[in-house]
């Protein structure tokens, strides 16, 4: 399949936040950013769960924060986990990833319109995600300064 179930979004904090982060630098900044990104994904994850068609997808929706392939980057994503699981769908046995994709993007052949439960959540909660990231990063930075 050309794409994975997870929808990855680049969320950048404000300029001021980035300046403060530069001053802290090193491993502490990475820790702060990881925790901020994790907080930023929460509104998107919650909205995706609200949008999700069916209990199984709601249950399988997860978030993850990892090191990116490019050095110095951190990647956060909201995705449908356990996608290798085999399920019966319209009389056919398929991987759950397939079902999750059909529901996200729609399928004319299967008579299903796009539910866009992931991308819709990303679009409607992008601003809330940035605010949550900034809030978390500021809290963690204050704590970091206090330690010094």
């Amino acid at each position, binding site marked *: 399949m050309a794409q994975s179930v997870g929808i990855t979004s680049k969320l950048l904090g404000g300029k001021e936040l980035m300046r403060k982060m530069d001053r802290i630098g090193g491993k502490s900044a990475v820790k702060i950013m990881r925790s901020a990104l994790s907080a930023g994904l929460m509104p998107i994850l919650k909205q995706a769960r609200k949008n999700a068609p069916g209990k199984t997808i709601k249950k399988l929706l997860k978030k993850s924060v990892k090191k990116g392939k490019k050095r110095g980057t951190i990647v956060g994503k909201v995705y449908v986990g356990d996608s290798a699981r085999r399920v019966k769908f319209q009389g056919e046995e398929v991987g759950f990833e397939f079902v999750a994709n*059909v529901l996200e993007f729609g399928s*004319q052949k299967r008579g299903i319109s*796009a539910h*866009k439960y992931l*991308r819709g959540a990303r679009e409607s909660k992008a601003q809330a995600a940035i605010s949550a990231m900034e809030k978390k990063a500021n809290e963690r930075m204050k704590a970091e300064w206090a330690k010094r």
Partner: protein
Amino acid sequence: MGETMSIKKALKTKIESVTQAASAGLKVYYGIAPQQAGYPYAILNRIGGYAFGDQGGDECASREVFQLDLYHDDDEGMEIIRNAIISAINAQGRVTWSSIVVHSCTIDSVQDLTELETEGNEEGAVRQMIEIVIVYNR
């Protein structure tokens, strides 16, 4: 005075007016196409969006994201229509679509989703999805 045209309708009109699409008889549907729809056809869906800018001023803008799915029974025909649509709607400056001021229209991604349209080993239509981001004046 007529009702203000929505950006979704303006985008549909813009796509249907692309020469290569019109000459191939491309029809654009919202949500899902009728089962008897003939190739080529397209389905337009709104993914989401939000408003920003000065709420009281002229520069009160909105950002909207759309999913356009193109269906064709022929790879080459698909490529011609897809490229023509992308080049016609791509706008980096201020343009006007059906009286709506569009500040930018960019292609966020293009994906081949043919696999979602096949059952078992059966080969059917070719499907490509284009994600479109539009910033326009409300």
